[in-house]
Every structure is written in C-alpha cells, then in structure tokens.
C-alpha cells in the first residue's frame, strides 16, 4: 500500500511539475520550447521505482518526469527551464538538457533523438570494465528506435553482455508522425530479438506493471546476462511541444488516453484498498504547493552573468573573439 501511494505521489508530482512549467511557458516566463510528459507519468514512476541509487540513466528532450521520478530537486529543474544560474546546468542546457552527475547519476537529457542510446551503452561498458554493480538505464521514445544508434549500440551491448536496460516510452508520435506510418513492426521492443536481447512490452499507464517489468530487466542486466529492453505504451496528452495543437491526431487518441489515465487508475485502486479521497487530494495539494515553490525559486533566481558565457568551455581561445 505504501509502495502504491509512493507511485501515486511520484505521478502526481510529475504532472504538477509539467502543468506548472506549461503555465509558466504560456505566460511567457520561459524562453525556447518545452516538451511535456503529461500522460507518461505511470511509465516514469514505475520504471524509476526499479532503479537503484548506484544506477545511472540517460534521458531525452521529454525528460522532466525522469528527474522528478529519480528524486531530483524540482526547484533546480525549474530554474534550468528558466535559464537561471541556479538550474542544474547553470542555465546552459535548458529544458532538453538537464543533467546531474553528482547526485542522481543522471548522464543527461539530450536534444538529439537517440543520442542517449550510445551514451547509456557506453556507461554500461564503463561499468563492465570497472567491474562495478551499476546498471545503466537508457530512457528514450518510440521514434528513436528508428535511429542507427539504436541498432549499433544494442548490437555491441548484447555482444559484450553489458549491464544495460533500455526503457522505451512509446507515445506513438514522433512530433506529428504516427509511429506505424513509418515503422513496420506493431511493437518496438521486439527489435531487441534481432540481437538476442530479451524484451517486454507493457501497458505504460499501469505503473505497477511497468515496475515489475523493469525489476525483471534490472535483475537480468545486473546479473551479467546483458541488456534488456522494456517498452511501455503511453499517451502524450500535449502535442510535441507545449503549445502544439496536435491537429494531426485523431480525436479518439485523447478519448482513449483519458480513459486510461495512469493517475486516475492508481487513485481508484488506492480507494478500493481503503485510501480516502481526502488523502489523495492532500497528495495533489502538496505537489501543487511544492511546484509553486519551485516556480517561485526559479522566477526569483538570478540569470547567469553575461560574463559567464565562455565558462565551462574546454579551451579558452576566445580572447580574440568579440561576440557583438
């Protein structure tokens, strides 16, 4: 029961973070673009419940939920979205590039679709060479399974038995393109079979099912048997980016999505087990208050000083450059 409540809280916190970020974006408080994972919370909460503290992970442009599920600090995450100095990357990365090597073992969200596949496999290679106990989890979406990097790095990881788990959140859309219009397999994880890698396909709106599949995957990878691929079928409530009206989707997509809402389903399950509606409301109110604080922190934080523009570059060869 406590475990289910924790999953519920994580899902609610992810949605609260995303809804707060969306509101800030709409108000013009954020520059650039943000990509929200509203509708994918069940998959994210379930998957990260199976990941141990010593494990590593990579993320994507739609990666805020992974940070929350991993126990990251919503204040620093929100500040990064705002481009503030207090953000995870001092404002140099933004929404698509949150990383936290020190505390979360977060090897970075990435703006290049599929880039985390090779990086996660490389992290798993490092674990094999070092002989440590960490598994690396590469999180990515449906469309990146069509990148060459998927096939190149999975082949190597399988051949060398690397401690790697890939977690695919399949929301069926790459920007506007429905995955089956450009992909000839009903499921995506089945491609793992081509490399003799075991896989599972699960309902990503069922956090417990995702957790169980990921537990199996993590145990497999940790025991030296090589990689494992888990595909969670999810819905992307918003368009590709915040503000995308998603006119390319049939109306039935959202009807189906809302009928399968992971948070609603878990709430119902908890109430069936005797949790009171007020307790669930309290979790929601707590999450909303936490994200209010995160927005306040981000909004009030200072921007980087313009003089910081060349900090963290490898080579200080800008003495002769004048940017403007």
């Amino acid at each position, binding site marked *: 029961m406590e475990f289910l409540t924790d999953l519920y809280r994580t899902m609610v916190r992810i949605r609260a973070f995303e809804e707060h970020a969306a509101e800030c974006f709409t108000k013009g408080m954020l520059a650039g673009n943000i990509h929200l994972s509203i509708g994918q919370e069940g998959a994210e909460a379930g998957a990260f419940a199976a990941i141990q503290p010593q494990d590593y992970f990579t993320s994507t442009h739609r990666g805020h939920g992974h940070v929350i599920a991993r126990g990251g600090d919503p204040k620093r995450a929100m500040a990064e979205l705002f481009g503030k100095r207090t953000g995870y990357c001092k404002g*140099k990365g933004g929404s698509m590039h949150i990383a936290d090597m020190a505390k979360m073992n977060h090897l970075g969200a990435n703006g290049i679709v599929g880039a985390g596949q090779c990086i996660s496999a490389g992290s798993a290679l490092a674990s094999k060479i070092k002989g440590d106990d960490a598994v690396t989890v590469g999180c990515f979406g449906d469309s990146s399974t069509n990148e060459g990097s998927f096939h190149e790095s999975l082949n190597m990881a399988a051949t060398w038995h690397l401690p790697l788990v890939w977690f695919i959140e399949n929301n069926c859309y790459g920007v506007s393109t429905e995955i089956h219009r450009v992909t000839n397999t009903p499921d995506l994880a089945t491609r793992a079979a081509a490399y003799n890698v075991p896989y599972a396909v699960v309902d990503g709106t069922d956090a417990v099912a995702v957790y169980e599949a990921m537990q199996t995957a993590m145990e497999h990878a940790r025991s030296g048997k090589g990689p494992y691929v888990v595909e969670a079928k999810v819905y992307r409530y918003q368009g590709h980016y915040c503000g995308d009206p998603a006119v390319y989707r049939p109306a039935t997509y959202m009807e189906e999505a809302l009928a399968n809402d992971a948070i609603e389903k878990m709430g119902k399950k908890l109430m069936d087990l005797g949790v009171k509606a007020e307790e669930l409301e309290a979790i929601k109110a707590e999450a909303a208050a936490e994200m209010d604080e995160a927005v306040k922190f981000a909004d009030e934080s200072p921007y980087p000083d313009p003089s910081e523009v060349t900090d963290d570059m490898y080579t200080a060869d800008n003495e*002769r450059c004048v940017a403007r």
Partner: protein
Amino acid sequence: MSKKKITVSKAIREGLHEEMLRDENMFIMGEDMAVMGNVFAITTGFLDEFGPNRVIDTPISEEGFMGMAVGAAMRGMHPCVELMYDDFVTECADPLFNQAAKLKYMSGGQCSIPLVLRMPMGSGRRNAGQHSQSLEGMVCHFPGLKVVAPCSAEDAKGLIKSAMRDPDPVVVFEHKLLYAKKEEIPEEEYLTPIGKANVKREGKDLTIITWSREVNFAMEAAEKLAAEGIDVEVLDLRTLVPVDWDAIRASVSKTHNVIIVSEEVKRGSYAGELSAEISEELFDELDSPVERVCGLNIVSPFSPVLEDQNFPHPDDIVKAVKRVLNK
C-alpha cells in the same frame, strides 16, 4: 638526452603503450584494433598484454562506438578511439560534434569528456575521394574539441601522451604517409604540450604556417629558397585548437609576410580561418596579403597523376613564397 630512431607509427604505439601502463582507466576501441593490432600496426600485441576489456575490436559501427566512448568517458574512463580514416568522421558526427564537444558546457561543467580520437588523414595514398581527405577545418569548427596534427615521430608520441592526459576530448590527425617515416626521438619519457607550436626553421623574409605532412614539404621548399637567397621561417603549428597565437604573432611580427599551407580543400579550410585571423589581428604587421596554399576545391581523385595535382608540393610552396615576395 640520448635518442633512438623509430617510425612514426612505432612512436605512436610507444606513446599509447606507455599511457596504457600508466593509466588503468584507459582503453582502446575501434575497428581492427585488437586481434589484428590495427591496419597501420599501431596496437600490435596490445590485446595479449592488456586483455579484451581494454583493447576492444568493434563492429563497423562508428556512431555506436564513438557514442559509447562518450558515455564511458562521462563515467571516468579514458577511451582512445580510432577511426580507420578521418573520412569516416561523418559516420560519427553526432557523438563527436554534438555530444563529446558539447556536454561539458551544456551540463554547466558537471562532466568532462576525457577521450582521444585518432584519425589517419591525408592525400597521396591513392585511395580516392572517400579515404584521402584532410578534414581539419570541419573538426576545428566545433568548440569544445582540441585538435592536434603532428608531423614528426617525436611530436606524434609526445602529443598522443598529452592527449591521453588531457581532461577534454582531443582529436589527433595522423597523416597516413608519415607512419613509415623513421626519425629520432628521445629515449626517455617525454610529453609534447598541447597548444604549443614549433619553429621548425628560423627565417626573416616570410613565415610558412603549416602542420602535419606539409611541414616536411615546407622544409624542402625552405631549403630550395635558401639557395636563392630567400630566408623563410617554418612554423609547425602541431596544435590547431587551441592555436598557439603567441607563436603566430611573434613570427608574423618578425617576417611581415605569411603563407599558410595545408592539404585541405581550400574552401572552408582551417587555413582560411587562420588567414582571416591574421588579417584581422595583425594587419599592421603585414607587408603583403596572406596567401593560402591548399588543395583544390575538388573531390580527391584516384589516379596518381590527378591526385598529385590536389595537394601542395614543395615547388608549389616555393612558387607561392616568390609570388608573395615579388621575387
């Protein structure tokens, strides 16, 4: 300091071998690096000595293994990756240019990417348009990469050792036609610093700025010119990024005339970047326009007769120097 005579490829092998012994986090990864010991015999015997965890034969998956090297480097390993030819850098453009070069900055300095990428480059081996390029200009474009291009056995060994110890990604351009060249190097262990050019020959009339194999051609040209009473300085950059600007400034301020020699396609070349920088920064020192002596703006041809038209030879350098000096 006592010296020994050794080929450039053996010198690189020695450098890698010493670093493998010194640094347990270092590993070597690439096509045909382990069982075969590399197509240019750079890693012969390494597999037996260091084992399959540290000397890794990869499939022909350049994006895959380059990206994995980035991930391993983020975890504190020191990968030394080889691309069989620099032409294949297009196959791993994303992990090199978008990941290795950028992740330190984009993460706000949370990680460094201490990897080395070795890339055999250059014309003259009759390998046609997809195995003969000099892509320094493209690689130097991306902020975050350090780039070196040695011309001698001594520098090839000293720079590969410095590259392995550098906290940031270093791309090493090795000219294929230098591998078999035998030269003297010190017996004792040494490092060649990244970011320091080398005045190969002092002179007062004109500076030839160059790197890699063209340094040798520039030296030949300098001897021919000396016989005619023209005294040129040859500045071997050794490191392209970060470039040794102090050395360039000192030489140009002395000779007041410059040509830049490289094997690159002239359009969009690193030679062009250097020419622009010198013109912007040292205009008052110049007695003549900066001239580039580069390859043609064509695909590298196969036929020996045609390929020889496509990179600067000593006589081309001699002609360019005389043209610039009106002699």
